């Protein structure tokens, strides 16, 4: 049943994106183009989504557990770190260049749209590059510090 819910949620999510106009890059870029012929539609998508989910989240959060899983998998971290800004900026530049963010890119790519297929494929490659960098970094952090005068207080801190 959990898998049926996941499938239906994905389906409705994609239909919502299309209905909201987010699978048309021209509309997304029209929203980001404040100095041009500004199209505020995307703000209405965000407002509708946040209004419904803010309510939905509060109702669901009263439960001890989800309907078809043992527990909720919600983010618990509250600290701010530079990565949030750096990653957001890289993503925002790619978003502004193409008019596609991940959800619409995957939705439109599945429909056979060539630009979206290119964006989605490059996006997967970008994610794999990040995973490779992350794996390399955590291997480096896990490795024992080399012996010598640097070991100890001057050794680079494992993040």
């Amino acid at each position, binding site marked *: 049943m959990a898998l049926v819910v996941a499938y239906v*949620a*994905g389906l409705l999510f994609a239909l919502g994106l299309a*209905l909201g106009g987010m699978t*048309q890059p021209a509309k997304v870029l029209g929203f980001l183009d404040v100095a041009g012929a500004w199209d505020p539609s995307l703000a209405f998508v965000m407002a*509708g*989504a946040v209004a419904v989910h803010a309510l939905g989240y509060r109702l669901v959060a009263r439960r001890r*557990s989800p309907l078809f899983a043992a527990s909720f998998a919600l983010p618990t971290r509250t600290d701010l770190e530079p990565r949030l800004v750096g990653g957001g900026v*890289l*993503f925002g530049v790619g978003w502004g260049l193409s008019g596609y963010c991940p959800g619409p890119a995957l*939705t439109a790519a599945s429909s056979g749209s060539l630009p979206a297929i290119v964006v989605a494929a490059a996006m997967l490659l970008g994610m794999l590059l990040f995973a490779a960098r992350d794996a390399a970094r955590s291997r480096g952090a896990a490795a024992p510090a080399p012996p010598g005068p640097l070991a100890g207080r001057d050794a680079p801190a494992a993040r």
Partner: protein
Amino acid sequence: MIEGFTPLASLAGGALIGFAASLLLLGDGKVAGISGIVGGLLSPQRGDVAWRALFLLGVASGGIAVRLLAPGALAVEVAQPLWLYVLAGLLVGYGTRLGYGCTSGHGVCGVSRLSKRSLVATASFMTAGFVTVYVVRHVLGVAP
């Protein structure tokens, strides 16, 4: 009169997105963040794969349904050169993983929870998006 402005359809589409995110939380206890769901499939953990695959299958089914029922919703009016789509996709993929999320995970789910981290990430990618389009269209004068 703003050309192409679709307040009602966009509000309804947004509400449907919010409903889908709430459904995934209620049923499976998961956050509907697209980049996170895909990223988790690229670095798979045992027991944490099937729901991601089914969610993405649902997204793909939605894309196919839209192609069959309302192909206009997939129009690409401002076609860019291919290399630009490649560069943009790489930035979107790497950036969303570095920044822990995208428009859905941070922008919808995180903002709905008033998560400080998501508010910072959302402000960052929105600002970068505004600045990028401004530079491309009004400084470089490339796109229409």
